[in-house]
């Protein structure tokens, strides 16, 4: 175990966070709020600690998969701890656990809040809350890799540990350029959304903050009713962008390098869009009576489906009052999640597709016991290793879900509340049903439950293994 390289990278993450904290500080300054001091204090703390950690360059820059996992997990924990400081320092969220919950929810692009009244928060903190979505969406270490010339080829282990999906591949030969391209696409799409929202007449602050939330598939709103009070056009715009950010970024890369054929051939995206369309069509008849017209019905169905499957968590209506069937579809969509290689969470469409194909193959081999069939995905055969990791992932995912559910139910909330609270945090969505529905919040849970959900959010964002590794003593040993 190469501890010094881990220290070095964690240090850099802190230095970068110091820089990132300046931005909301400026916003606070712009609105003349006192919180600017909280941001400055947090930034200074980050900068000094990070600076000390990176002062000595590690001699041995070699690191392997386990250092990669550990670095990513530690970076995210440190990032969240430091990110919670402004909330805590400004006393707007007096409990540190609550502040941590809010920050983790931000960085992991969950969007689950403990705040009962969002509108009473200061502008600087609201900006920071949504900005954490944007940072967490593409990943901090991807950002670190894009700007820092780190150790040779080994940083692929970092990219692999941080990026969602069953198989992380590079777009171009260099990790650094790949990270740069991903962030380029990310910024471009975000900027596009900001511009469109600005043109639709949304105030500057709102369009920035909402776009950050959409881009990272986060879901922190700045109004108590999330997005319900925005115009029809703005709601449609956000719907479209939520779905766009749930698409595998390779798609945009292929489009950029003018290989649209390869982009369209991506199986995952076809199924992803198919699932969205199917879910909308299934929900519409059940909720038709709740809304005024067809447009409104479709808009609400599309917005909620897009928001849940991409694991964003914005809402335009209280879907908790929908009929059971519609709610169940939403609940299932929570687990499906977005495409791999996107900013969304959940199990990912690609994994579900592969698991279903494996199921079909298994059924087939029960009938024809001697049949040989390789599973293909996007026209390429799936290696046995990949298959295995997909299956293990799904089992581990359910395992974490069940265990967390058990622990959260100690709080004695209703079945629906506890189960959906865990589903909403593990899948990085935000709102659940009943006690944690769109109009409610997570503030009433006990400290234990909050800690469990903080873990779930991080585990969901980093796809379980980096975080589960922390609990294996063997990982920490030098040999």
């Amino acid at each position, binding site marked *: 175990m190469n501890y010094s390289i881990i220290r070095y990278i964690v240090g850099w993450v802190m230095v970068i966070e110091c820089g990132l904290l300046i931005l909301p500080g400026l916003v606070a300054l712009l609105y003349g709020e006192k919180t600017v001091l909280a941001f400055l204090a947090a930034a200074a703390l980050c900068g000094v600690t990070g600076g000390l950690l990176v002062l000595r360059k590690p001699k041995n820059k070699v690191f392997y998969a386990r250092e990669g996992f550990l670095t990513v997990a530690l970076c995210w924990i440190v990032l969240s701890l430091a990110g919670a400081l402004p909330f805590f320092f400004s006393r707007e969220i007096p409990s540190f656990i609550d502040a941590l919950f809010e920050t983790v929810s931000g960085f992991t692009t969950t969007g689950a809040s403990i705040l009962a009244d969002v509108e009473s928060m200061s502008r600087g903190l609201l900006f920071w809350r949504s900005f954490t979505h944007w940072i967490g969406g593409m990943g901090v270490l991807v950002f670190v890799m894009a700007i820092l010339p780190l150790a040779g080829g080994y*940083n*692929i282990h970092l990219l692999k540990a941080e990026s969602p999906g069953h198989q992380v591949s590079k777009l171009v*030969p260099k990790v650094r350029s790949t990270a740069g391209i991903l962030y380029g696409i990310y910024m471009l799409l975000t900027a596009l959304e900001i511009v469109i929202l600005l043109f639709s007449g949304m105030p500057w602050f709102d369009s920035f903050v909402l776009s950050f939330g959409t881009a990272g598939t986060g879901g922190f709103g700045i109004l108590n009713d999330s997005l319900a009070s925005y115009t029809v056009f703005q709601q449609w715009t956000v719907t479209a962008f939520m779905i766009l950010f749930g698409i595998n970024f390779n798609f945009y890369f292929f489009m950029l390098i003018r290989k649209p054929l390869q982009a369209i051939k991506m199986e995952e995206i076809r199924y992803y869009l198919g699932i969205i369309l199917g879910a909308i069509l299934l929900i519409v008849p059940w909720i038709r009576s709740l809304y005024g017209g067809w447009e409104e019905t479709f808009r609400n169905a599309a917005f909620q489906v897009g928001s849940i499957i991409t694991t964003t968590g914005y809402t335009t209506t209280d879907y908790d009052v929908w009929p059971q069937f519609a709610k169940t579809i939403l609940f299932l969509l929570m687990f499906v999640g977005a495409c791999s290689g996107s900013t969304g969470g959940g199990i990912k469409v690609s994994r579900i597709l592969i698991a279903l194909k494996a199921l079909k193959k298994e059924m087939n081999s029960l009938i024809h016991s001697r049949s040989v069939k390789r599973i293909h995905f996007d026209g390429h055969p799936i*290696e046995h290793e990949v298959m295995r990791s997909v299956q293990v992932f799904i089992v581990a995912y359910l395992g974490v879900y069940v265990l967390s559910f058990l622990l959260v139910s100690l709080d004695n909330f209703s079945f629906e509340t506890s189960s959906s609270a865990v589903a909403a945090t593990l899948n990085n969505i935000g709102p659940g049903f009943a006690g944690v529905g769109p109009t409610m919040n997570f503030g009433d849970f006990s400290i234990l439950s909050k800690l469990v959900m903080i873990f779930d959010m991080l585990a969901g964002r980093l796809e379980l293994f980096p975080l589960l590794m922390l609990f294996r003593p063997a990982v920490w040993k030098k040999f």
Partner: protein
Amino acid sequence: MDIIIVGCGKVGSTLLEQLSGENHNITVIDKDASKVGRVTNSYDVMGFVGDGTSYSLQMDAGVEEADLLIAVTGSDELNLLCCLFAKKAGNCRTIARVRNPLYNKDLHYIKEELGLSMVINPEYAAAMEIARLLRFPSANKIDTFAKGRVEMARFKVQQEHKICGNSLSQIRTQYKCDLLICAVERKGEVCIPDGNFVIEPDDIISVIATPVNSNYFFEKIGADTHKVKDAMIIGGGTITYYLGAQLQNMGIKLRIVESNLQRCEELSDLLPKTMIINGDGTNKELLLEEGLANTEAFVALTNIDEENILLALYARKQSRAKSIVKIDRSSFDEVIRELDVGSIIDPKYITANYIIRYVRGMRKNSTENSIETLYKILDGRAEAVEFLIEPDCPLIGQKLKNLQTKDNLLIGCITRKRRVLIPGGDDSFQPDDSVIVVTTHTGLKEITDILRR
């Protein structure tokens, strides 16, 4: 530069190791998914699994934008076909490894007709390297610069050599010959010595000089300088064939020991003037009977590394012969180097080095930097870089002693109008000089990089 490497076997991996550190965008293609996985996990490169001759895969790997495709799979035909496709599809430069002796005679034709930029035959390259070492047995390794006008020879100082205990400045005045001791390895550490450095026995020194001067110097200090007259080769593989043919031309008497009778007969057809002995090369009696004790050179070329090492160690014990060992898997080279086995020849490393030299030459054309040749010397721990001084170089005319150069950096020699000059402090660069710089700093790009910043 965008480079595609087809095949990540031994040569492919060595290429990757070197080139990925030099800011190229590298894509590898191999049929074996686990090999691709291994290299993409350890180097910053992109991998594709599949057959390199597939047009669509080459397109996926970006052959259209690539500057160079290097085909180094195990199959000659596949390599040639790969290069042919790449040439047509991407109009890039191509390098192929072609090792079948059958093609070796027609190599020139193949290269010209298929439009390849370079064809490399690892066994042939290794044989040439061995032949060069046999010409000058004191050296461990010889590299050439300035189109062969300057040599860098590396050799181990023995107790009986007269330079032991002398400092470099003493050596310079005492022997009055134009040469430069540019690097010293002592106990595994490489250093670029200055005038006060004292040579000790068992140091491995690298000397830059013209071939004539280095011969003169080695003679003066009491090292062996005559070329060998006879040699014993164990193992009758392809390298042996090339080496045999070369040595036959040089008039060196040869004995080749090979255990397979059929191969012996083949070799006897191929090398009619050479004595071929059918027998087990690891048989002590056989070796002694065939005159191991009196041979001047001993070359172990069997396919088993361990056997080669043991044979060389035994030969060192029995005779004063110059011994050369072929090693195919150099994963434990730091251990092997500590053993007294003589020169070590690694065909894959030689092949990779030839290709890398070509790639670095290409870089010169594409980004206008002035590197002529670049050698990774002393196992990559130091570099010897040959620069061409452009007419607008800011260093022209400045006396060398006034230049604030980096530590561990030495200006080895200047070739000016075909004359080789070992520079002193009062010399200066002139336009069109070719300058060799020896340094442990890697990644010099311009001659001005030698200055301390």
